[in-house]
């Protein structure tokens, strides 16, 4: 359990999935729509990436080995597992909670098939030393995403009262903002280049 918390904390703060790895940058834009969508997407991403981390660890320990598996099989297996998980979740929701499924269909799809979910699978395999560590990595990616969303949401308020040049309005200025925050977190990470 301690490894879970430690790995999760590292993934949230030190190697935030947004600032250090840009994993969930594509989810950020739909998530920033309102406070409610931030929570929906944040929870969905957290759940999907934690599950992905656990699944990845299971697959990895089942299929130890290099060669063909490491180069060709791993991405295929991971993505297939993710697709299977997605299909199961969707089928379950559709069968039992039809309204909920209809409401969160798009966030669910986006949070399953984005860089954060698959990325946390790879991170879980590379970085975590145990099953709980792998789940912790996934959870950390999700919570880090929520945190980053909150930070960027604060920035939205600030940017709303800035005279941002026309060319920079919208995505570019958000990217600048995230980039500067990423630069700031370098003070904590240090010199090394993350994988």
């Amino acid at each position: 359990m301690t490894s879970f918390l430690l790995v999760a904390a590292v993934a949230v703060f030190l190697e935030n999935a947004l600032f250090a790895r840009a994993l969930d940058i594509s989810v950020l834009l739909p998530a920033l729509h309102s406070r409610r969508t931030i929570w929906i997407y944040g929870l969905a991403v957290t759940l999907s990436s934690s599950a992905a981390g656990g699944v990845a660890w299971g697959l990895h320990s089942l299929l130890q080995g290099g060669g063909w598996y490491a180069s060709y099989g791993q991405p295929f297996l991971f993505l297939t597992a993710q697709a299977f998980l997605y299909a199961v979740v969707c089928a379950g929701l559709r069968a039992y909670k039809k309204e909920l499924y209809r409401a969160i269909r798009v966030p669910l799809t986006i949070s399953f098939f984005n860089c954060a979910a698959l990325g946390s699978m790879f991170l879980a395999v590379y970085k975590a030393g145990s099953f709980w560590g792998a789940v912790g990595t996934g959870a950390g990616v999700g919570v880090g995403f929520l945190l980053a969303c909150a930070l960027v949401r604060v920035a939205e308020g600030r940017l709303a009262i800035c005279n941002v040049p026309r060319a920079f309005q919208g995505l570019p200025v958000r990217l600048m903002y995230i980039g500067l925050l990423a630069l700031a977190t370098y003070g904590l990470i240090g010199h090394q280049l993350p994988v």
Partner: protein
Amino acid sequence: MASERTAAAGGLLKRCKQALAENPVLLGGLALAPVVMVATTVKNAVALMIVMACTLVPVMLLEAVLAKYLSMVPDFARMALCAVFAAAMLMPARLAVAPLAQNIFDSLGMYFALTGVSALMFLHSPGREPEGPRFAVTDAVCGTLGFALAVFLTGAVREALSLGTFWGVPLGFSVKFPAMAMPFAGFFTAAFWAAAWNSLSRLIGRMGGGREVE
């Protein structure tokens, strides 16, 4: 019949133009993760382009075909099928990328596979409505072109600034900025290109919706 065909072609052209002017990567923020993280050299950029082309075109085609002929299957199942297909397409992509450089997969890391999954994000880009296989191919090609443009511009600038080279060929700069290879610099570079693209597309729009695509 002929007029119908020209109308369809005109629609296609318009769609193409729209897709390029509203670059899904630079203005829509799709598939930015690989652009920001690993588009540090032109070689990486080309590799990412290949991966995107290998996954996006078949996946979009598959999605359109499935939507047309297998519409009774629930859409989540179709999505899952697309995902598996994209994962499978990563294998030929790997074969195509491998000759580029010795250590190309080391420098791409996990973002090789993440580019493939980014292609799935294109299926959900806002405002996109699947309208049959032919438009799907156009969409996919335009999306790939947009991605290629973004990743190439970002990669070229970052390689020139961080290593002083272009495709490994020295450019003769005396000062290098090693930090440009880092992720935060990727954000900045992408942001500046996005801003440039923003003003360019507005300029085109102001010129009276001219003929030229770029």
